[in-house]
């Protein structure tokens, strides 16, 4: 078990197992079977009981999508793309947890040809993109509808990037608010 921060406990297990009370995750727990075949590559995430339902839905959706991407074979784009790395998938989960809240709308998640993943939100032309490389290098780009950059950063470790995280959270919260407002106006 690795303590990533005071509020977040992540463990990677070689097989699903019951967790003793002192090991219960405070936020979520990533479990991973040792994959012996490519088609077994997947991540499993157990969320703590205090995880709120809306965010739980978002995170489960993301885990499902990432597991789908982990099944892609090499050369999935017919141009020599690498398989999506499990490290990138795990990093995507960490960043989603850091940035999203109960009112965040669902991200769109794409494989990258270098084995990374990209997480994107797009609403009314405004966007936030999290680019995660196969070795955990993370880049963030958020912009308004006319292309002005509002949030931008290159960070290897989200734990050391509090200013970037705060800015990205604020931007994502604004995007989510706009999506809710649009939905209300339609109804």
């Amino acid at each position, binding site marked *: 078990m690795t303590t990533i921060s005071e509020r977040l406990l992540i463990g990677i297990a070689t097989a699903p197992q019951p967790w003793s009370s002192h090991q219960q995750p405070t936020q979520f727990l990533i479990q991973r079977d040792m994959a012996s075949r490519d088609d077994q590559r997947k991540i499993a995430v157990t969320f703590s009981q205090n995880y709120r339902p809306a965010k739980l839905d978002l995170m489960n959706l993301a885990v499902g999508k990432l597991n789908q991407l982990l099944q892609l074979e090499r050369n999935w784009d017919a141009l020599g793309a690498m398989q999506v790395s499990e490290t990138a998938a795990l990093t995507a989960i960490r960043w989603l947890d850091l940035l999203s809240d109960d009112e965040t709308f669902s991200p769109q998640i*794409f494989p990258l040809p270098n084995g990374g993943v*990209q997480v994107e939100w797009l609403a009314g032309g405004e966007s936030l993109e999290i680019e995660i490389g196969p070795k955990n290098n993370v880049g963030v780009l958020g912009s308004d509808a006319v292309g002005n950059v509002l949030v931008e950063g290159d960070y290897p470790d989200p734990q050391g990037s509090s200013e970037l995280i705060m800015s990205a959270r604020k931007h994502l919260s604004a995007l989510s608010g706009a999506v809710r407002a649009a939905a209300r106006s339609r109804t």
Partner: protein
Amino acid sequence: MDDALPHPEDDSSISDDEVLYRRIADYGSGDLVVVDAITGHRRPSSGAFKSDDDGISVYLNGVLSEIGLGPNDLVRAPQNAVVALRATVPRQLSLGVVRHAWPTGTDDDDHPRNAAHALIVGFLGLSGKERRRTQKALAQLCTWVIDPGARKSDP
């Protein structure tokens, strides 16, 4: 953007008005298209413009036309999308366009469309921030030519 110079490798024999087609890969169960949660507008993910070591593969419309081909001939799978850019767009982003006919090491080396193969170059010298901004600009400035996902989502 208007004052930017093209990348030094740029091939000036390719006119600014030349249309560059870019095939947007799919991965069977999904595509690399991001959908606006408010407007429903679709555009390629900026990840679809991530450069390989040698550049971003595109096809020159002028060459395709000379040999009787068009954007439909770039499609390799039913879910493949095709977008278009004028050559002036990457140039205004300080990138270049170079001819790269008959690339080797692909699984379709002999296909006649490869006579029109070209590369958008100039990503190697960019910082991570510059590269992401440039990729996003390309994704925003391209136009749809073939978008199978749009047909699928039609009412």
